[in-house]
């Protein structure tokens, strides 16, 4: 480990690992939540559609930080108050990892929901019709015809969501999870070299971003097969 890290290298590396773990888990959850919500909103039911609409609109208007604090501090307080009021006081403490991942997945699910929804609508109607006309079941149609073409439309936006989410994980440091931001913060305080350590944090985030951009370019090339060559 380089001397400049003054012995904090392993701690920061652990923080980096935790940041990646939080980001990947949250993104996975956000994709699941978004897919589910987008399917609900595309379903015929008016009530379901309205519920999804409220979810995506409200979430997109609230800063991540507020929701994070609300979940981490607000929910336990609420439960404790309620239980105390009912005469059975209980102590509730949320696991910061679980609270952070849940909140981020919930927030970014609202964004991926919109992504999947518009990607679904962007697949031309004729693609669906010809699949139906040839006797494919709705599931086969979705799996073989719609979903692969949805990816083409969704990938750029999903990549975007991933990078915003990655940066939003820094906010989880506020609920005491020792991820990259928090470990560098601790090192910065102990060594009184805040610039050095926060710069290290920035470079680490930048590295993940650059690797992600590279991965995204590859994924898009794959998803655009059949299209890129003719239009490019």
């Amino acid at each position: 480990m380089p001397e400049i890290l003054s012995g904090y290298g392993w701690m920061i590396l652990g923080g980096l690992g935790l940041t990646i773990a939080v980001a990947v888990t949250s993104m996975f959850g956000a994709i699941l939540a978004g897919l589910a919500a987008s399917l609900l909103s595309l379903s015929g039911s008016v009530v379901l559609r309205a519920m999804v609409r409220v979810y995506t609109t409200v979430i997109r208007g609230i800063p991540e930080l507020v929701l994070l604090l609300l979940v981490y501090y607000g929910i336990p307080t609420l439960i404790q108050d309620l239980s105390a009021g009912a005469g059975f006081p209980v102590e509730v403490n949320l696991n910061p990892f679980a609270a952070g991942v849940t909140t981020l997945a919930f927030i970014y699910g609202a964004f991926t929901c919109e992504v999947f929804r518009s990607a679904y609508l962007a697949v031309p109607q004729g693609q669906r019709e010809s699949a139906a006309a040839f006797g494919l079941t709705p599931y086969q149609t979705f799996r073989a015809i719609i979903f692969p073409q949805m990816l083409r439309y969704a990938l750029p936006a999903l990549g975007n969501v991933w990078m915003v989410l990655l940066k939003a994980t820094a906010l989880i440091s506020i609920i005491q999870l020792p991820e990259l931001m928090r470990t560098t913060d601790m090192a910065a305080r102990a060594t009184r070299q805040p610039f050095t350590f926060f710069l290290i944090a920035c470079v680490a985030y930048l590295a993940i971003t650059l690797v992600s951009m590279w991965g995204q370019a590859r994924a898009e090339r794959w998803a655009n097969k059949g299209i890129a060559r003719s239009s490019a």
Partner: protein
Amino acid sequence: MMENNPERPVAPQQLSVKGLRKSFGNIEVLCGVDVEAAAGDVISVIGSSGSGKSTFLRCLNLIEMPNAGDISIAGEMLPLEYTKTGPRISDKRRLQQIRTRIAMVFQDFNLWQHKTIRENLTLAPVKAKGIDIREARELADRYLEKVGIAEKGDAYPAQLSGGQQQRAAIARALCMEPEMLLFDEPTSSLDPELVGKSSE
């Protein structure tokens, strides 16, 4: 409106349509169409654009839902019922099974953009009819040759000209080895010399 092949002996009706009605909003497009056709018949529907030719064809495999009327293919009624809330499919599985026997060439082809031409031709035979993939590929190559684009099997639809796309769409329909073929504007993009050839 239609023209039955006079040489054919009377066979069990392959297609029978009775009282087919379809309207979009207040505009009635099909007002009670009756059609009978035997195996081997070639029926051409002629009319100016907007007169409902496409709508008629699309009702035959229930891509479009008619508002009234019965359709039966080879003596089998399409699983369609009319309820108070509108027409609905009563047995999706049977409809899918019937659809594998009626192939359609769409007006704008609707080739699947993310699949190669060969994959376009093999997808439905494998997935909907359960044909072995190798057999489906042989079938695909045979029909590609027949429509004159044998060398385009590995190309994507977007790389083909309009005429080539239409031939691919025709080949895709033929690969289903259907009992009935529905052509929407069958020769719109074809070169004149191919028009005669593909009508066979």
